[in-house]
């Protein structure tokens, strides 16, 4: 990973409270796992920024080293890596994701 893409990723994850790195756009996800992540966020009614890694090879490769996580999508909340779509689903089913975002709404 170049310092440049690392710095750009760092800025992206801190730019919004909820950031999803995904393949494609929220309207047109290009992968089933990204689609699942979007569905969960939409279902919870969470406002989020998305970053399409297919548009930027530096970010697509860099994000994997950034979080030590080999796959996309990746969810970040308040600058912290939360997990991929499997963890999002587990947290959603356990009510933990709701809690995570609910807590944030109170803070706002």
């Amino acid at each position, binding site marked *: 990973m170049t310092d440049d893409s690392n710095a750009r990723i760092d800025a992206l994850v801190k730019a919004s409270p909820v950031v999803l790195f995904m393949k494609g756009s929220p309207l047109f996800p290009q992968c089933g796992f990204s689609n699942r992540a979007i569905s969960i966020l939409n279902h919870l009614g969470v406002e989020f920024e998305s970053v399409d890694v297919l548009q930027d090879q530096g970010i697509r490769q860099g994000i994997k080293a950034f979080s030590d996580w080999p796959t996309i999508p990746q969810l970040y909340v308040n600058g912290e890596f939360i997990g991929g779509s499997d963890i999002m689903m*587990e947290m959603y089913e356990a009510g933990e994701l709701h809690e995570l975002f609910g807590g944030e709404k109170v803070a706002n």
Partner: protein
Amino acid sequence: MPMAADDIATMIKDAIPDAQVEITDLAGDGDHYAAMVTAASFAGLSRVKQHQAVYAALGGRMGGVLHALQLTTAIS
């Protein structure tokens, strides 16, 4: 080049000896799998760390030859 379900299970068990591994071939095409990995040694690890331990066991194949592995981990 897809991986065989047995190879995935073997790699995980080699790296996490106390793991119970259950692999499901979701699409029947040898390319889209779900893995349920349960291990007592996951105790005290966050979900992210548990998943990272499984990904580490797969030695970089995840996200490469192994595109579609739906992963669930639990503490036994």
